[in-house]
């Protein structure tokens, strides 16, 4: 096998470079997610009204705080490419690991497709402002994904340094937008008293809005994918992840505050680029241009991080023979999982070409949600199998098991929220994972080297 030759013909296997610091981790996490503040979060308003969206923002913020706490402990201890996938391999078992790997690949590839779709739509909106109608969005979709794949092919340092810059600029634009609406003077620019209504669907709408509430933060757990490429996992992962969560909580609240003070909820609930629309409503061409660029930057940063994370998850699956071993190769010069990067490009593009933004987002959200459900019993088992003091942990999260229990409760509520309005998609995606699991058990598992699935220098787990 070509990949085997590449990775094992020399005396020492080629490893990925350890070049990243906490700022890169922050940029990877926030970069993937920040696009959610520019579009997609507003579907919460459509499902339950403006107040429901705010409640979803904070409730799902709690869900992700639990995710970040759990991830910081487990990832700083299991510092290897693949993130949650590698954790599942060491703590739960091969079938779970295979599924977690698929969740990651699907969540990030679909998110990348959604980002590319937004770049295309944004270019179309920009062209309309300049008098060109019916601009074909497809070339922009292809160009975005192809350029970012090339960057990812060439090296992780340049990729995430680009993310650091454009993510910071996109975040700064939200702050500028917030300051420009004179936030302390109600009724001057912002019109919350007139635009905010009661809950249009009652409390069931609040629960339903939890589904798209995930879009405020979906992908922050992607920080774990770079665990093998950071200089100090015990320091960089918790700092970058928790710092990212704080940034996102601030950005999400600002976004909600500005958008709901400018647009009727019925419009906001279905808008494709709400923050760009907000800038348009303010009547300032400079602000409009800034939000145009910032929305494009946020989408590009997100797609960039998604290609980075999805390729590493796919690479890990190949390296462990859960998927064809061909994908488990690292580029001899650039030290990147180049075959996985290239393989995912046409998939992301073809999903973006469907133009089905809400469907693609739902696939991404559900794959993420399944991954968070896994984290709850992963954390409980991790502490049981290797109690504190038996292995070195880079970080120990406080209040265990409260974050795991809270996370499981919120995951159940979000499954129910998805059932409300997207029940068919939920069942269809579950069918995919069930069929893939059966296929793994009956066909793929025979190619897996059993003992190779446990590589950490830990003692035998308790109970096994």
């Amino acid at each position, binding site marked *: *096998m070509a990949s085997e030759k590449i990775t094992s013909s020399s005396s020492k296997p080629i490893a990925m470079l350890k070049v990243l610091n906490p700022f890169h981790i922050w940029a990877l996490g926030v970069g993937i997610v920040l696009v959610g503040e520019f579009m997609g979060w507003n579907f919460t308003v459509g499902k339950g009204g403006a107040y429901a969206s705010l409640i979803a923002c904070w409730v799902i913020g709690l869900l992700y705080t639990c995710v970040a706490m759990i991830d910081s402990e487990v990832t700083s201890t299991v510092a290897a490419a693949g993130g949650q996938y590698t954790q599942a391999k060491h703590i*739960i*078992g*091969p*079938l*779970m*690991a295979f599924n977690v790997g698929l969740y990651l690949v*699907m969540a990030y590839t679909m998110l990348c497709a959604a980002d590319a779709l937004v770049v295309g739509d944004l270019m179309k909106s920009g062209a309309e402002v300049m008098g060109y109608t019916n601009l074909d969005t497809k070339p922009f979709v292809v160009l975005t994904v192809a350029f970012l794949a090339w960057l990812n092919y060439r090296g992780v340092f340049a990729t995430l340094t680009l993310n650091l810059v454009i993510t910071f600029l996109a975040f700064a634009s939200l702050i500028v937008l917030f300051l420009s609406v004179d936030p302390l003077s109600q009724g001057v620019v912002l*019109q919350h008293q*007139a*635009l905010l209504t009661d809950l249009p*669907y009652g409390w069931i709408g609040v629960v*339903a809005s939890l589904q798209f509430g995930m879009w405020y933060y979906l992908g922050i757990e992607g920080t774990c994918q770079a665990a093998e490429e950071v200089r100090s996992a015990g320091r960089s992962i918790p700092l970058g992840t928790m710092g990212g969560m704080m940034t996102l909580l601030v950005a999400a609240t600002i976004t909600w505050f500005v958008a709901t003070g*400018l*647009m009727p909820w*019925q*419009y906001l*609930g279905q808008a494709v680029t709400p923050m760009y*629309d907000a800038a348009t*409503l303010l009547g300032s061409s400079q602000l409009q241009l800034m939000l145009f660029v910032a929305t494009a930057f946020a989408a590009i940063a997100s797609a960039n991080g998604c290609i980075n994370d999805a390729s590493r998850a796919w690479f890990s699956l190949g390296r462990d*023979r859960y*998927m*064809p*071993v*061909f994908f488990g190769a690292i580029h001899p010069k650039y030290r990147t999982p180049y075959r996985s990067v290239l393989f995912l490009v046409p998939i992301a593009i073809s999903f973006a070409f469907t133009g*089905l933004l809400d*469907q*693609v987002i739902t*696939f991404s959200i559900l794959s993420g949600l399944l991954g968070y*459900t896994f984290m709850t019993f992963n954390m409980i088992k991790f502490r049981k199998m290797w109690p504190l003091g038996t292995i070195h942990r880079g970080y120990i999260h406080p209040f265990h098991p409260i974050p795991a229990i809270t996370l499981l409760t919120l995951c159940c509520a979000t*499954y129910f929220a998805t*059932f409300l*309005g*997207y*029940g*068919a998609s*939920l*069942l*269809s*995606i*579950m069918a*995919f*994972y*069930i*069929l*893939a*699991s059966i*296929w793994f*058990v009956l*066909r*793929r598992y*025979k*190619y*897996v*080297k*059993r*003992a190779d699935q*446990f590589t950490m220098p830990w003692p035998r*787990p308790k109970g*096994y």
Partner: protein
Amino acid sequence: MKKNYIPPKQGMFGQIFDTILVLILVYASLMVPLLFKAEAKADATAAIVAAAVNVSWESLGQNAIQQEQWIKLGYDPEKAAVLINSRFDYSIDPMMLIITILVVAGYFIFMLKVSDKEYREVIREKFDNK
């Protein structure tokens, strides 16, 4: 002491077949719900558009500020009515809810059980067959 399991090598054809199979599964799971939903959505949209004739801001329940913002966004009452009158249906079918709960819970139970069995093989080979 049992010998370590030695997996067979997979040929290129098998690798390509497995990759394509996963791709087919992904595309199918994305497209299947669309086939069911597309028709229902088209019917609902047609009904909303038909009901949006001769409406006014007042009949749509929009106050002065809301009207002003709709107009700035480029909407007249008839165009806005399509968005204002689109509503989610949150009525719950108990049978579908039970099926969904069973599918999600069954999936995780199946996965944990099988994973545990596989994990014991991994640990046995790792720690017993050194």
